[in-house]
């Protein structure tokens, strides 16, 4: 029996739409893959948050893997994330550097005082220029930089222990991060 074309064509179109939406609706358009992953980490040298006379820069961590976490006191996601950052810091696997983005120095210092400080150093970026170099568009953002200075991973939004264990820790394993 021959099935008429007027049944076949809409069925194919419908099946196509099902596939299309099934993929499309699962994507998160808010998450833009950074072109930085796989490229050398942008260099920076900024004032330390706690001590304007001191500098914090990417050169300080060259030769070993490190994390860069972009945060600010005006960022609600950073507040949500802070507990997780503390837990990651307690694991003591990799030094975590903070990039304090477009923030107020006194407020930022009070935040670390009250909530705990997971960072080995915090760079102060009040005009957001270093953040632009790193392609930051929504704090919190977390980068993993390998020992060779390559950006290995970027996480946008509050990091969870699940995504930390799944996406970051394997890259830290000997041979994984290089």
């Amino acid at each position: 029996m021959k099935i008429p074309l007027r049944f076949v064509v809409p069925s194919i179109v419908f099946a196509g739409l099902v596939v299309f939406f099934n993929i499309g609706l699962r994507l998160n358009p808010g998450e833009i893959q950074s072109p930085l992953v796989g490229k050398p980490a942008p260099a920076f040298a900024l004032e330390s948050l706690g001590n304007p006379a001191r500098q914090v820069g990417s050169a300080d961590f060259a030769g070993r893997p490190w994390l860069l976490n972009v945060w600010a006191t005006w960022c609600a996601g950073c507040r949500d994330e802070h507990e997780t950052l503390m837990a990651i810091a307690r694991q003591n696997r990799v030094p975590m550097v903070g990039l304090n983005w477009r923030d107020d120095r006194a407020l930022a210092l009070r935040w670390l005082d009250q909530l705990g400080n997971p960072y080995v150093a915090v760079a102060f970026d009040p005009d957001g220029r270093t953040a632009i170099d790193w392609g930051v568009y929504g704090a919190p953002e977390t980068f993993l930089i390998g020992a060779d200075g390559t950006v290995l991973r970027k996480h946008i939004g509050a990091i969870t222990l699940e995504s930390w264990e799944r996406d970051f820790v394997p890259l830290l394993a000997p041979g994984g991060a290089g």
Partner: protein
Amino acid sequence: MRYALLIVVMLLTGQAFAIDAGRAFDDPAKQERYERLIRDLRCLVCQNQSIADSNATLASDLRREVRDLMEAGQSDEQIRSFMTERYGDFVLYRPPVRPRTWLLWSAPALLLLGGIGIAVLVVSRRARAARADPAVLDEEPDRS
């Protein structure tokens, strides 16, 4: 009349929402170039606005960056690649033609060709039906 006035007033409120109130450059040619550049760059915080339309902090930072790069004598191409190196092609409202975007760029032509194809098919089939039985033209269109 009162409604007409209301509509005119509502249309004018757009001016009140202009973001970049101060001019970036005194030179009108430079200002025009600046405005063209920032209209073509997407604000990543509020993704359906250009950095010309957005008052997000990041958008104003990126406008400042465009201004500084122009003052440093960078070409439009250099300014655009400064942005894509950091934010990817997504930051451009006019994505470049690449293997990844071929489907995007060719979609209008493909849809047009598809439409023409369907139209030709329907017309020729109806013409054939009309030749076989001219009466069909006077009746309800054949829905086969």
